[in-house]
Structures are given as structure tokens and as C-alpha cells.
């Protein structure tokens, strides 16, 4: 198990390094001098040179790349070109909205998809199964941000059950923050839950046909008992794979949906940074997103090891 763990973690570190290199080179290609952007047109050459040195813009790119990575490891993401404050602070502030939103949506996805998928599998080809499958087809076909707009109009503007947008912050307690994130989380979760419910259904159906399930029934377990004790664990492997991939979609989706609900999350930060040419902020935000995706995929791999002991050997 230890070898499996080490191998996975090493792969993760290697992926992160290559990803960071790709991001760095990509944004290093961009023409323009951040120092003159910060100081404006009237800056003296001395002031420019001093700022360039302070920002670490001098030197060949491998040196700047290594300085960036060393900074990331210390938690020092550099100074934003437009806001003149540490990027790490900006990102933490914004992640405090985007990450809970994505996790809230992930939770809703699981809570909806697991029972719905299992009910559909248990009642296969019944009226209920057919309507569940029809609804999930619709759910998959919906753009989540469009669904978000419709939810916002119906539940916030017409019915006034939930806030239409903006985020009160976490300092006023959990409740106001959660209500502000509820509509965006539902909009994010339903399309992903539709996908996951279908995966769950087919995975459970697949498991039900296995010989060991027949043996479990033969030794006297009820259908439900056999499913819970032997089936579910096996059915969960494909479900976990998809769930891991879905986290990336949820985080990216959160960035788009923030726009609908006027939430100042990571998306708001990165899109403003793009238009203001604040590339150090763009670079750090992208790195944080990619880190999240790679970390979650590693976590999923590790969970496989827990669910299926055979996989630990590879």
C-alpha cells in the first residue's frame, strides 16, 4: 500500500511540475512589460528598472520560472500588477467563495445521483426508470449557466425564496452564506447529477448480473442485502472515476456561474485580470485550478486502492 501511495504522489508532483511549466511558458509568450503597465506612461527608466527587479522580471526565463516555483512552494505568489497586493491573498479571498460552491455542488450531485441511480436500476424498464432516464437526458443537455439564469429569475426574482446574487461572506455565520450559494450550487449540480445517476444506474445493473451476486443471493441474502454488502462496493468504481472528473467540471462551472449570481469568486478575479493584462494573477489562478484538478484525480486514484485492493498492486 505504501508503494502504491508513493507512486501516486510522485506522479502527482511530476504532473504539477510539467503543468506549471506549460502555464509559465504560455503566459511568458505574451508581449508587453508589466512594469510599464503598473507605472504608466510617464515612468522614468530608473523607476521601471527598479520595479522590474523588484518583480523579478529580469533574467532568463528558466531563472524566472524557478523563482516562481520557489515562491509557490513558500506560498508567495508574487505581487498583482494592478491591485499591488500579494496574489496569494487575492486568491484565498476568492477561493473562499468558489471552492465552497464547487464542494456544495459536489455534495448535492452525490446526494441526488446515488439514490436516483439506484432506484432507476432497481426498477429497470419500469415507468419510473424511463422517466428518470428521460429527465437525466434533459439535465445533461442543459448548459448549467443557462439553467442558473432561469433558476435565478424563478426562485429569486419572482418567488423571492432565495437571494438573487452577491455573497454576504462567511463572517455572518454559515446560514446566510449557504443560502447565497444554494441556487448556484443547484444549477451546477443538476446537470452533473444527471450524468452521475446514469453511470450509477448502469454500474449497479452491471453488478447485479455478476456471479458473486447470485452466490450472495444463494447463501440467503436478500436482494437489497446482497447489493449493499457485495454489489455497491464494486459498482462504485466507475462512479468514483466519473465523480473525480466531475469535480473539474464543477470548479470550472463555478467560475462561469459566479458571473450569473454576481459572486466575487475566482472566475471574477481571473476574467478581470485577463482584461487588465494582470498576467501574474491569471498565471496563479490557472495554477490553482490545475492543482485542484490534479489533486482530486490523485485522490480518486487513492480511493480506488481503498475500494479495490487488486489495484494497489499496479
Amino acid at each position, binding site marked *: 500500500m505504501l508503494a502504491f501511495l508513493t507512486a501516486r504522489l510522485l506522479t502527482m508532483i511530476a*504532473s504539477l511540475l*510539467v*503543468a506549471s511549466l*506549460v*502555464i509559465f511558458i*504560455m*503566459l511568458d*509568450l*505574451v508581449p508587453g512589460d508589466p512594469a510599464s503597465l503598473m507605472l504608466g506612461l510617464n515612468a522614468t527608466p530608473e523607476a521601471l528598472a527598479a520595479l522590474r527587479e523588484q518583480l523579478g522580471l529580469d533574467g532568463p526565463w528558466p531563472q524566472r520560472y524557478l523563482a516562481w516555483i520557489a515562491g509557490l512552494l513558500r506560498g508567495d505568489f508574487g505581487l498583482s500588477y494592478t491591485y499591488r497586493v500579494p496574489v496569494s491573498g487575492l486568491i484565498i479571498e476568492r477561493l473562499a467563495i468558489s471552492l465552497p460552491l464547487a464542494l456544495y455542488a459536489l455534495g448535492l450531485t452525490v446526494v441526488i445521483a446515488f439514490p436516483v441511480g439506484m432506484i432507476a436500476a432497481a426498477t429497470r424498464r419500469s415507468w419510473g426508470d424511463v422517466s428518470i432516464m428521460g429527465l437525466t*437526458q*434533459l439535465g*445533461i*443537455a*442543459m*448548459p*448549467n*449557466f*443557462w*439553467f442558473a*439564469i*432561469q433558476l*435565478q*429569475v424563478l426562485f429569486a*426574482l*419572482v418567488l423571492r425564496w432565495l437571494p438573487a446574487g452577491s455573497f454576504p461572506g462567511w463572517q455572518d455565520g454559515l446560514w446566510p452564506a449557504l443560502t447565497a450559494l444554494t441556487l448556484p450550487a443547484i444549477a451546477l449540480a443538476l446537470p452533473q447529477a444527471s450524468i452521475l445517476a446514469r453511470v450509477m444506474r*448502469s454500474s449497479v*445493473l*452491471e453488478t447485479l*448480473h455478476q456471479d458473486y451476486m447470485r452466490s450472495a443471493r444463494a447463501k440467503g441474502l436478500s436482494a437489497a442485502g446482497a447489493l449493499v454488502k457485495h454489489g455497491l462496493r464494486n459498482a462504485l468504481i466507475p462512479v468514483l472515476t466519473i465523480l473525480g472528473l466531475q469535480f*473539474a*467540471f464543477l*470548479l*470550472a*462551472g463555478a*467560475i*462561469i456561474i459566479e*458571473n*450569473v449570481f454576481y459572486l466575487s469568486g475566482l*472566475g471574477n478575479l*481571473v*476574467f478581470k*485580470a*485577463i482584461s487588465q493584462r494582470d*498576467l501574474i494573477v*491569471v498565471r496563479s*489562478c*490557472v495554477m490553482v*485550478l*490545475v492543482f485542484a*484538478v*490534479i489533486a482530486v*484525480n490523485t485522490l480518486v486514484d487513492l480511493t480506488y486502492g481503498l475500494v479495490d485492493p487488486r489495484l494497489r498492486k499496479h
Partner: protein
Amino acid sequence: MMPVRSRRRQIPLALVLGLALTSLFVVLALVSFIWTPYDVTKLDVANRMQLPSAAHWLGTDNIGRDILAMIMVGTRTSIAVALVAVGVGVGLGLPLGLLAASRHGSLLDEAIMRSNDLVFAFPSLVIAILITAAFGPSAFNAILAIGIFNIPVFARLSRSAALSLWQLDYLRFAQTAGKGVARISLEHILPNILNILIVQMTIQFSLGILAESGLSYIGLGVQPPTPSLGRMLADNRTLTALAPHLTLIPGMAIVLIVLGLNLLGDGLRDLTDPKLARQR
């Protein structure tokens, strides 16, 4: 003796529905090249935000453009973006996957698969953010971002499908008979994995439509004045409470296209793999 059941395959309902929906929008998009009910570049502010009527079947938008005409041209843009992105994915992913499979276990195979894993860490939105930050927003960037994300999808699929074929004896014989791996990949493997490729293409096509709408909605994709389904949602989003049809109609168009493509994909899979259909 058991009575022999008819072996004729049933045409799946999903296939019929999917084909009908997809064709409807493809026809709308194609017709828009030669005819639209109104000119989409013509503004008619006096008649803005009108509800559907005899003159404007689907109403007019925030600056008086005919929504049906916008949907027709927008569908054309969205389909074009998604289609080219699928082309990029297949064009690069398929050869890479076949190559990796033909050199299974080699350093090249490992390198291709690890690069695929790496690309998977970049959702198309993140690729779009990077490209836009470097080169500015455009429809081309959206195509590139979605296309790059499609490459590992097709590389993995074709590699795993090809790997199982390489186990078969007749391919080994072909190799002993002196055929090169490239020729075997083209002549024997490609035709045999074509059906799963086509199914995956319809899936990536529908995902591409969704991705284009999202990217254009946040301004990283198709730029004004070119209409796209995502741009229509972005343009009219703040007016939804006043005139719900402004976002409901373009959104429904996206839902129907994606639904059509997904049903088409499901139907094709059931048709080509009846074993799977029975399990479902």
C-alpha cells in the same frame, strides 16, 4: 428445439429521435447560409424585445434583431465551432492513440499516455483562459480550447480499442506476412474501431456545443457581432426577468441540439453494440 427468433435488429427509438432533432438544427444552420427571415445585422430598436408574433415567430431581442434568424445563424456558428473542435480531437488524438497501441509498452506509448493525462488536468475553460490571456478572445480560441481537450479523449479511446484488436491472431499473421504496423493500423484496426469512434464523436460534438455556449457567454469565445447561441444568452441575460423568452428560446435551442446529439450517440451505440443495448 427452440424456435429461432427473428434476428433482425430493431432500430432504437433514441436513434430516430436523435436523428430528427439533429437534422432539424443542421438544416436550420444550412438554410441560414442562403436565407434567414430577417437580416441579423439589421437593428430595429423600435421593435425590440417583442414577444413571438406572426411577423417575428420567436420574437425580437434586446436590440430588435429577429430571434429566429439569430438562432439560425447562431446554431451555424455553434455547430461550426464544435465540429472543428471534434475534427482537431480526432485528427490528432486518433493517430496518437493508434501509434501508442502499435508500440504498446514502449517509451513512446508511455510518453503519449502521460501527455494525455496532463492535458486532462486542463479543463477546456482553463485552456481558454490561458489562450485568451495570451492572444486575446476569439472564436478560433474557443475552437482550439475545446479541440485540445478532445485530443486525449480520442487518443485514449482509440488506443484501448486498438490494443484489444492487436491481441487477435489475424493481425499477428498480417505482421508476419510483412505488413508494417502503420499499414495494419490503417487497414485492419481503423475500420474495426470506426463505430466506437463515431459514437464518441457525437458525444464530443454535443459537449463542444455546451462548451462553446459557456465560453462565449463569459466572453472567451465567439465575439460580437457574430451571433452564437452562447452570445445570445450573454447579450440578453440581464433582461430575462422582463422578457423571459430572450434567454428561454436560445437556451432551449442548445438543450434540443445537445439532446439530439446525445440521443443519436446512444442510438448508434445500441445499434452497433446490441449486447450493450440488452443490458441497458
